[in-house]
């Protein structure tokens, strides 16, 4: 089958568009399958999903990469005064990335369970291309009475 170009497609309610016969893969213009190994080459796929013990990553052919990581802290103490109107922090933690960014201009966001906040630790800003330094923060001294789960998302570039 040759290449089909579709312009100004306006699906009707209750209809769907299927590309390729059953068992076929939609392929990128490079000829590679849509989801596979992403590389700086003419044979690259569009999206690559991967994982290891440090977390999950999604690389896109345009150079964007998203890393997702989880950490569970056991009854963390958040008691070190850092000023700023009485804010306190925990010990500093280090989270290795599942895949390296090309530079330290990537953005990081945290989602923390229970009453805590999390942020980059001042002694590791900017984070390196391979790891993030961070700690828990709170407005007054506290010790978690249960495990605290922290989810970290980093978005940047892999090339």
């Amino acid at each position, binding site marked *: 089958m040759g290449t089909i170009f579709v312009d100004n497609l306006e699906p009707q309610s209750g209809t769907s568009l299927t590309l390729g016969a059953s068992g076929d893969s939609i392929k990128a213009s490079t000829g590679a399958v849509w989801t596979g190994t992403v*590389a700086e080459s003419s044979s690259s796929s569009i999206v690559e999903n*991967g994982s290891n013990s440090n977390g999950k990553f999604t690389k896109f052919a345009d150079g964007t990469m998203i890393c997702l990581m989880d950490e569970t802290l056991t009854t963390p103490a958040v008691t070190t005064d850092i000023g700023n109107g009485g804010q306190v922090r925990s010990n500093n933690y280090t989270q290795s990335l599942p895949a390296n960014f090309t530079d330290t201009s990537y953005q990081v966001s945290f989602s923390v369970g229970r009453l805590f906040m999390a942020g980059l630790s001042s002694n590791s800003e900017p984070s390196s291309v391979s790891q993030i330094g961070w700690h828990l923060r709170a407005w007054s001294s506290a010790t978690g009475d249960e495990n605290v789960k922290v989810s970290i998302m980093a978005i940047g570039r892999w090339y």
Partner: protein
Amino acid sequence: MKIKLNPMVVSNSKQAPVISLSGLILTIDGQKIDLSTIPVGGQAESDTDLLQGIVTRDEVTVNYLYSTDIYESNQSTKQQDYEFDITEGTIACPLKRRSA
């Protein structure tokens, strides 16, 4: 000695490191690291990109860089699959290679 691997994907094509231990000499891709310089019961901060964090005579964490053109994108997510307790010899690579 407990050797922990810290797996990280890099963009450039790269084979996973070859790691071996002989006594207190740790060898990573041919580079020797003499852990006997660390006092018994003491610890040191890693001063090489090969290792991460605190190093003792009993435990090290090795940065385990690899690329997904050689190894599969999805590897084990279990920490225990990247931990080895050995006294001598070479560590078996825990990564799944892509089929040829």
